[in-house]
C-alpha cells in the first residue's frame, strides 16, 4: 500500500483558517476501485481508493476525494459511479447522466451533451486526502 504523502500535511484537526482535516474511515473500509460517500455535517465527499495497478500510473494505490454532488443531476451520487481511466487519468463517471470527471483535478472530461444544473459548475471540487495509520483523512475547506 502506497501512502499518499501530502508534503505540507498539516495536523489532522485544529488547523488555522477555514480548512480542516476530518477522519473519514479506515482505508480497509473502502472497496478498491469503487467509491464511498462520507458525510461531514451537511458536506458530502466521494472517496475513491485506487488499486495498485499500472494502468493508474503514479495514482495507483492512492485515495482521492471529490464532491459527492453531481453537478449535472443535482443528486449526491458520484461515489456510486464507475471508476476507470481516460488516457491514463483516473476518472469517475456519473451514474446518472454519464459525465466523466478526473479524480485528480475534478475536471469534467466528458460532458455527454449536457450542461450542469443551474448554479453549478461542470468541474468538481477536489479534497486533499491523507492516509495515516490506516485511517483516511480528508481536508475540507
Amino acid at each position, binding site marked *: 500500500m502506497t501512502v499518499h504523502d501530502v508534503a505540507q500535511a498539516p495536523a489532522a484537526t485544529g488547523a488555522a483558517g477555514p480548512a480542516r482535516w476530518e477522519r473519514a474511515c479506515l482505508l480497509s473500509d473502502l472497496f478498491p476501485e469503487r467509491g464511498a460517500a*462520507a458525510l461531514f455535517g451537511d458536506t458530502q465527499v466521494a472517496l475513491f481508493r485506487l488499486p495498485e495497478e499500472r494502468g493508474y500510473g503514479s495514482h495507483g494505490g492512492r485515495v482521492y476525494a471529490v464532491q459527492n454532488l453531481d453537478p449535472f443531476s443535482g443528486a449526491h451520487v458520484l461515489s456510486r459511479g464507475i471508476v476507470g481511466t481516460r488516457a491514463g487519468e483516473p476518472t469517475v463517471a456519473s451514474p*446518472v447522466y454519464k459525465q466523466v470527471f478526473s479524480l485528480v483535478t475534478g475536471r469534467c472530461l466528458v460532458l455527454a451533451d449536457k450542461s450542469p444544473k443551474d448554479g453549478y459548475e461542470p468541474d468538481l471540487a477536489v479534497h486533499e486526502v491523507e492516509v495515516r495509520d490506516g485511517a483516511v483523512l480528508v481536508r475540507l475547506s
Partner: protein
Amino acid sequence: MVNSGTPQHLVVVGGGMVAQRLVEALRARDDAGRYRVTVFAEEPRAPYDRVGLTRWFSEGVDGIALGDPDLWADPLVTLHTDRGIESIDRAARTVTDRLGHVHAYDELVLATGSSAAMPPIPGNDLPGVFVYRTLDDVAALRGWVEEKRRGFPAGKPVRGAVIGGGLLGLEAAGALTALGAQATVIEFGTHLMGVQVDLGGGQALRRLINAQGIGVRTETATSQMRPHRRTGHVGRLDFADGGRLDVDVVVVATGVRPRDELARAAGLPVGERGGAVVDLTCRTEDPHVWAVGEVACIEGRCIGLVAPGNTMAEVVVDRLLGGEAEFPGADTATKLKLSGVDVASFGDAHARTEDAVEVVWADPVAGVYKKLVLSDDARTLLGGVFVGDAAPYASLRPMLGAELPGDDPSAFLLPEGGGGAPGLELPDEANVCSCNGVSAGTIRGAVTEHACTDVPGVKACTRAGTTCGACLPLVKKLVDTELERAGIEVSTALCEHFAMSRAQLFDAVRVADLHSFSEIVDRFGTEAVVDDGGTAKGRGCDICKPVVASILASLGNGHILAGEQSTLQDTNDHMLANLQKDGTYSVVPRMPGGEVTPEGLIVVGEVARDFGLYTKITGGQRIDMFGARVEQLPDIWRRLVDAGFESGHAYGKSLRTVKSCVGSTWCRYGVQDSVGMAVELELRYRGLRSPHKLKMGVSGCARECAEARGKDVGVIATDKGWNVYVGGNGGQTPRHAQLFAEDLTSEELLRTIDRFLMYYVRTADRLQRTAPWIEEVDGGLEGVRQVIMEDSLGICADLDAAMARHVENYEDEWKAVLEDPEKLRRFSSFVNAPKDADPSLAYVTERGQRRPATPAERAAGVVVAGPKLEVRA
C-alpha cells in the same frame, strides 16, 4: 411556402402501393400542411406490398405490411377502405363513392392500378380458376388448395398449373409450391420471363425452376379448360398442340390491364392499349386530374412495375407543391427471388441497341447465366441479365449508361473470388435504390452532410433500401467508403480500452477462458501512456466495464458482486436496484408472468407503506416501489425475500418481464395457457445478462392481448401450439416483432428461444436490442433462422449447452447478498455514518404518495417530508 388558410383537398382513387407512396411523399414534404389527402381504396385494407404477396403464406399480413402504419393516423390523411369510387364529375370537381357519397376535390389522382387480365380461353370461368393480383385472390387460392387437399386421400397431391411464364406466373408457381401443391408453368413464348430475360437466360432459368420441382412447358398455347366430370371444377387443360394436363387448380397470370374505366367515363383520353394518358408531369388533359402507377399511360405505354409508379407518385407530389419534376423515364430493372432462384435484368436486356455487344458468362451445370450488354466499343453498360447469380446486379445496375472501369468487362461476370471485378466508383446520379429513387449522391450526402455514420442512419435519412432491400449491400459499401473518405473510422471498438466490438470480445473471453476484468484488459486491452511516462493497459471506463461485466455474467462467473466483478457494475447492478433522479432507487420484485398472490400483494403494500415508497404498476405487469435509499435496500429485500419474492432484475441488462394475457385458464377465447408459458419462460431466462434489456410476451390467442409483438421475443398461441415472433420493441423506435417460427410445441418453443437469446447474447453489439441486431446478422431474419432452425453454423449444441448452464446456475442475486455480510457492507449510505439518510433528499406529497420535491418547491419551503420520514421497520 406559407399555409394560406384551409388546406386543399387531394383525393387519391385507389389504395395500392403507389397510392401509399404518394401519401408518404406528400406528408414528408408538405411541411406547411397545404394539402389534406383522402384515399379511397377498393380493397378492405390499407395498402400492402403486392410485390411480396407470396410472403403472406409464411408471415401473414405482417409479411406484406408496407411502410409506417402511423401514416394513416396522420390528421391530414384519411383512408377509406372498401370504398371504391364509382364516378368522377370533372366539372363539379367531385367524386362519388360506392355508397353514393359525394366528395369534393381540389386535385384528383387516379391510382387505380390494373386488374389481372383473363384471356378468352373457353372454360376460364370454371371453379378452381384463379388470377393472382390481390390478397383476396391469394387467400381464395389458398382456401381452394387446402379444400382440395382435404378431400383427397392422404398422399395424393393437388395438381396446379399456371398459365403465363412471366414474372407474375413464376411468383404464382412459387405460391402453389409454398401451399404444397404441384405446379406446372405453361408459357406461350419461347422461354420464361420473356420480357426481362433473353433466350439464354430463359433456358438457365428453366433449369433452375425445374430444380425447384416446378414443371415448365414453353411454346404452349392453352386452347381450353375442361371441367372434371364429377365435380364440375376445372379438371384438365387442353393445349393447341394436342397435349393435355390434368389439374385441380389453375392460376392465370398472363398479364394485367389498366383500370382506366373511371378515366374513360370521365371523358379523359386513354392510350391505345388502355391507361389514362398523362404527360411527363403525370397530369392528364384535365389540369386537376393526375394519374400514377399502372393506370397511367406515360410515354405511350402503361408500366406494370412498382418502381416507376413510385417515381410518378414523387413527381405528382413535387408538382402539387409547386416543383418542376418530370418523369425521367421508366427504370424497368427487375430482380426476383423465387424460392432461392435469383433472376435480375436491367436496361437493354435483349441487346436491341444498334451494334450492341453482348458479353455472356454461363455455367449450365450450376444453372448460372450472366450477360452484359455494352455499346459497340464494349465500354458503356447498356443492360444486363443475371440468372442463378444476381450478385453483380446490385453494383452494376446503377452503372447503366456509364463507362465500366477496367479493360475487361467480363471480369464483372466472373464468380465471386474468381479474380474479382474492378472497384466501381458509382457516379453521383447513379440510381442505387430503384424502389425509392435514391441516388448514390444522395447516399453519400447522408454521410457527408447529414452526419449519418451507419446504414440504419442512412436508411432513415434517405429511405434507401427500405422497400425491397436488394440494394442494401451496395448502400453499405457506399456508406463505408464515404465514412473512410471523411476520415471517420468505421470503428467497432468499444472504447479507448478495447479495440474490439462486444461480440469479438465475447468470443475472445470465451475462447481464452478468462474470468476477470484485469485478466481481460491485460490480454486484450489497449495500451495508454500513464503519468510516469510509461505505457500500461488502462483500467476501463463506464462503457467497457459493464460490457465485460455482462460477458462474465453470461459465461457464468458467479455473483455479479463477487470480487473484482463488483467494480465493473453500473450503479443499478451494483445496488441491485434502479437509480432515480434524486439518487434514491426503485425496487421491483419479480412477478413471473404478471402473476401475484393476494398475500404477495399485501407484503408489497406493507413494505411500500413502511418504507414510505411511491408505488406504481409498471408496463411489464409488476410493481415498482420508488424512493428507497441505499441503506434501506437490504431491509426492504429481507422482507420481500422472506415473503418468497426474488429479484426482478429491473436494474439489469437482462430479461425484464414476460408479459402475458390470462389465457385459456380463464379467458373464453384463449387456446393455450399463456400465463403458464409466461411463468415458465420468465423462470427459465430470469437473470440472463444480455447486450440490452430483454422483454418477452405470451398471448393465449391471436387477439394478442399481451402485446407480444412489441417484445424482443413474442409468443402467440395457435390451436396447434405456439407461434414465435422476434425483434419487437417499444421505446423511441418502436418495432413489431416478425414471425420466426410457427405452430411449435412447448418443447420446440423453448429450444428456439434458448438459441435465439444465446445467439443474441453472444453476437450483438453493446446496447443493441434484438431488432437492429437481426438487421445486422448476415442474411437478416432469414440468416438468424438458418443459424437457429437449421444450425447453419453448427453452433446450436453449444448454444443449448450455454443456456442449460444458465438455467442450472441461476440464483436469486438478492438472496445471495442478504446471506453475505461482505456484500451487505456495500449498502451503506456513508462510510462514516452507514445508516444515515442522505440529508439532501426532500419530498412532497402528491395524490396520496410522496415524490421528490422540485427545486422551486425546495426554495419555497413547501417540502413536507425530509429523508427521515418515520419508518416502521
